[in-house]
């Protein structure tokens, strides 16, 4: 089943929840079955209190930061004018 929203447990230290919404990844079917106001509330949560994300990477910020750093390194290494990959 395709996941529609990924749950970021590590960002929910207070155990907050939306009524009737399980604290785990939500499938497409589950997300569509939610009342519109809950779907809007989940997707409209401000960044500091957001718990559900559309991408798995966004739901795991520690990993996504590491991956983002890796991406930067790859870009540095890949620059054609900087074959040694040295920061300028």
């Amino acid at each position, binding site marked *: 089943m395709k996941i529609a929203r990924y749950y970021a447990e590590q960002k929910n230290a*207070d155990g*907050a929840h939306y009524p009737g919404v399980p604290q785990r990844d939500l499938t497409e079917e589950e997300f569509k079955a939610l009342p*519109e*106001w809950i779907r809007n509330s989940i997707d409209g949560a401000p960044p500091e209190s957001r718990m559900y994300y559309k991408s798995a990477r966004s739901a795991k910020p520690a990993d996504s930061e590491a991956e983002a750093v890796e991406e930067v390194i790859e870009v540095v290494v890949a620059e054609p004018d900087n074959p040694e990959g040295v920061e300028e």
Partner: protein
Amino acid sequence: MAELAFESMSVALESTRGTLVTPPTHILNMKGMITPMEDVFDPDDQLGVLAGQTREEIVGKHGEWEAEGSADVTKLPVLFNMALAPVTTGVVPGRPVLSIAVTAGGSGYSGTITAAITGGGGVGATATVTRTGDAASAVTVVNGGQYYTTAPTVTLSGDGTGATATATLVTAPSTAKIWEFVRVMTAQTLKTGTFYWGDPNQKMYQGAYGFVDNMSFDADASGTDDVKMSVSGATQYPDDIASPTLPALSLGPLLMPRRMQLWMDSSLAIGATAITGRLVSANMDIPTGVTPKNLATGPTGGLGYDHLGMAKVTPEMHLVFEMVDQTQYLLFKAGTDMKIRIRFNGAVIEGVFYNYLEFDIYGKLRDLSWGEMEGTNRTVEFTVRGNYNAGPASDLVARVMNSSATL
């Protein structure tokens, strides 16, 4: 209409008083409602007919809201911003004394060596000193006290000289935060809020420029309920709206009356003397004094209140004790000015830091009333009306300890 299964109240503090904020930021976890109210004038016309009323005009419109439920340390800071003082940041709390170490034993001591613990911003720490031979050999903390921000000074005294000691505080918490609200006395700075009520599956109602006019708390250790809270106030006339996005629900730990703590002092600092083994119940009633002002606004002006004012009000604490001795009665009889701290405790956050709600109030024990309680001696009840105290420069201080990083 279907059952309103998810009827709830929520609120968002307004950064500018009276300017609507959407969407709400805090669900209050309380049963409540906003009721539209209309002030109607019907003149006493004489038309020579038996109709008792000939015409009417709506002269004012507003909403009244009320809510009740469990006292919730995660939501109280928002409500106290509207009822007591604008405080939007919790801070690391002061701590108890963990231990006291003798740094020099001194000499010439033959009797009791006492330890006086002063300063450090806290209160209530006590300790005993062990003498070995003619020197102090150890200091044992009996009561760690509360709210020390720096290590207090320990002074060892006796019939010898030279004994010294230093105190160490409990490690600062990493999660616990304390929010202190000193009831405002001289400025119109209480926050207003945009209130939301209803079932987002059915219908929501929104009232801006909302304020709190009263809060009360009830805790009965002889019962089985948790600490209850009721709040009331008013808003501008509520509009029915499409469901806004709502924040996620989070519940604070239940505050249980049997975990209450009480300190009563007269000559010592507030919080120094714990009262144990007799407190049955406690009630706090906190009027805010916020009152709406209705002013003339011309032919196109609205019918809602235009400004908010502040009236003089007095918070009250009501205490019920089992009458195990004459202590509280004698304080009443003597008319002693008291400094009283009541704390409603919940679950531990970390180490020695607990979720709690606390009030400091200053006044005499008044309005004695004898009562009865099954399984106890006679009970005695008092009311304390909060007096202005120059220490905090207020008549009421409230503190909330929780683990919330933000309001």
